[in-house]
């Protein structure tokens, strides 16, 4: 980190005491000082600095007790929407959206999956039809996390049904409060409704809110998905961060529950979690130098399996207490967190980890084909117009 950067950080901290400044104000000042995403251009929260110094900047703010946003609520905005807006948005779009996204004043959700298009996202059918300077959108999205809290959405639509599916899509920023957007809770195995069904009926989106060219939505979506997998699995955590830390604490607090077999199971997971953590750390060090590649899929794959195994062992370890659950009542969380609730909640919630953001099977396909260069599946859907696909 060079002297100028260090000066900028201490200047900001002096002018805006993190202890007394409201969070959004502090983050706004950080954005305006070009200290949000340092590799972003000036005026957009950055200063065109190398990505490599971001971690140091984050560490410096953390050391000063500066606030950050809750990643459960803002993960989609920070981890997926922001890099996509930066890469594919017009100047106007970037200026309009990046700042309130960074400060947490606006919450984002992801309108990708549909009832007929999950793993096969490119099969999606939500139609967008051009009308003057606007697009009119009709269709249904599903599994939309936090749509009930969101102000804005990243949205992929079908604009040309007559060409093969990967080619006829277009990507937009959609106002979640616009007329015609209806959000209905979708209750999940945990009892709560983190996600939703979203019905889009005659929703009007200005063409200015399009990201990338018409028909180029798949490529834009790839930016989002690559970043999503890194965002889910590629955190730089301290040792015993995340789920393994919860299990280790449970072990330490309950000596009466210890058995040698469970100790060995715990240690195996501890070792695997530490290996996965170091892998994410190595990935982070590499990302500091460039863009996320398909390697992020490895981190996400490992993270899902570990969370499931760790949370399963936590119930085994607790025995009788593992038979309880904290609360089945229907609710719509505003700040979802994997680690809260009860051990039973963690066990159930972790089941979603191998489904959300690309299933583990799809991630294995991606690794096999894009990293290892293995031959593609025999495809029956590549050269068929979207409208003629069997469904």
């Amino acid at each position, binding site marked *: 980190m060079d002297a100028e950067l260090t000066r900028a950080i201490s200047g900001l901290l002096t002018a805006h005491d993190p202890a007394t400044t409201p969070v959004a104000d502090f983050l706004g000042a950080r954005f305006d000082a070009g200290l949000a995403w340092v590799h972003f251009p000036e005026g957009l929260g950055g200063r065109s600095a190398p990505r490599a110094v971001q971690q140091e900047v984050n560490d410096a703010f953390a050391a000063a007790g500066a606030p950050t946003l809750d990643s459960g609520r803002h993960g989609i905005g920070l981890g997926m929407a922001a890099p996509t807006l930066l890469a594919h948005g017009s100047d106007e779009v970037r200026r309009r959206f990046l700042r309130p996204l960074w400060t947490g004043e606006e919450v984002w959700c992801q309108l990708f999956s549909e009832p007929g298009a999950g793993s096969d996202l490119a099969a999606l059918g939500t139609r967008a039809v051009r009308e003057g300077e606007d697009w009119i959108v009709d269709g249904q999205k599903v599994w939309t996390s936090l749509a009930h809290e969101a102000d804005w959405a990243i949205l992929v639509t079908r604009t040309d049904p007559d060409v093969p599916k990967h080619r006829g899509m277009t990507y937009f920023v959609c106002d979640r409060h616009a007329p015609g957007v209806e959000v209905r809770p979708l209750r999940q195995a945990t009892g709560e409704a983190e996600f939703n069904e979203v019905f889009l009926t005659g929703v009007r989106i200005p063409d200015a809110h399009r990201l990338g060219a018409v028909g180029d939505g798949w490529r834009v979506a790839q930016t989002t998905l690559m970043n999503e997998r890194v965002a889910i699995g590629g955190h730089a955590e301290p*040792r015993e961060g995340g789920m393994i830390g919860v299990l280790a604490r449970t*072990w330490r607090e309950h000596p009466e529950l210890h058995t040698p077999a469970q100790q060995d199971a715990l240690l195996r997971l501890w070792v695997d979690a530490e*290996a996965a953590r170091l892998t994410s750390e190595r990935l982070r060090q590499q990302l500091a130098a460039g863009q996320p590649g398909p390697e992020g899929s490895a981190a996400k794959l490992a993270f899902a399996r570990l969370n499931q195994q760790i949370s399963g062992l936590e119930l085994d370890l607790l025995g009788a207490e593992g038979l309880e659950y904290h609360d089945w009542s229907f609710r719509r969380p505003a700040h979802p967190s994997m680690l809260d609730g009860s051990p039973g909640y963690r066990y159930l919630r972790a089941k979603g980890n191998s489904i959300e953001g690309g299933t583990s099977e799809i991630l294995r396909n991606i690794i096999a084909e894009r990293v290892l260069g*293995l031959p593609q599946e025999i495809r029956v859907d590549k050269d068929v117009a979207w409208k003629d696909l069997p469904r």
Partner: protein
Amino acid sequence: MSGDTDLGYSEVEEELRANVRALLADRAPAQATLARTETEQTTDLALWRALAGELGVTGLPVPEELGGAGASWREVAVVLEELGRAVAPVPYFGSCVLATAALLTIGERKILPQLASGEAIGTLAVPFAKPPAGAFPTDVRVSGGLLSGTVRHVADALAADVLLVPAVAEDGTPELYAVTGAYVEPMVSLDMTRQLAVVTLEEVEGVLLASGSNAAAAVGAALEWGAALLASEQLGVAEWALTTTVAYAKERHQFGRPIGSFQAVKHRLADLWVLVTQLRAVARAGAGAVTRGVDVPLCSALAQAFASGAAVTAAEEAVQLHGGIGFTWEHPAHLYLKRAKSASLALGTADRHRARIAELVDLEV
């Protein structure tokens, strides 16, 4: 904390890798290595001389004033990766890791320059399966100033000019000797690319190198650093298994298509890639910890707790996904399986390293 360790490779390290890899491709092709396992001389001394003389990689962590390269254990780890990838039959681990670590720890200055230049080969005369955190070895006793005892399963002793022998003095003090007059007998080993030996000492003279806590520290460091660095060799083995199997899956056709287009094969290879990616991070953390002298006990135990299983899985997958050819003597896959399995037993099995982790991070029963 380990968070600060650089888990990548520097340009210099990549250059070193390229040089070692090119030399091994030229001088240690798989068929020659395979053939050598059935000869009297299972160590490739010509290859050793090339590594020492042409590449100068035998004294990387040794200071320049002692004839070394003044580099670090991170570079040693890169060499180990390449040697693992070729299952190269050279006594690098014994001489340049175990013996060098022990001698560096006690500040020895006479043998070290000879090992650094590669003109002499050394190893630590302990059973290869010995875990780092165990008690000081008691196989050899000192009586009347002479050493007697038998040490089985010693790695790289067959080619060694000098053995570093941990021995227990008459009053029970741990000591470390340099010995040249031992009787070294080859063992039929699971891994004949690193043939083990029985070292027998019958009232042999030795040069006392260290005594008491210094001797214990030297042996402890050799084993602990060795465990951390062995993961890099295991990474090389696993990488060979992965890349060779991926290449085969693209080439081998059954049912009118490459076997690598079957999802059952693909997904196993994807999982293997993830495992090898993790193994690389763990191995780099181990090498980085030894280099910086930070967090060594944990990173070393983690290295073996993780690498042992990972490398064995990689080699086993290579055999299975090659089908019948992978089970033949002619195909080198079995050399990697034997190396991986042997390495997983070396310096303590994974469960012992897990037990060590439990002590270190307070997860005991």
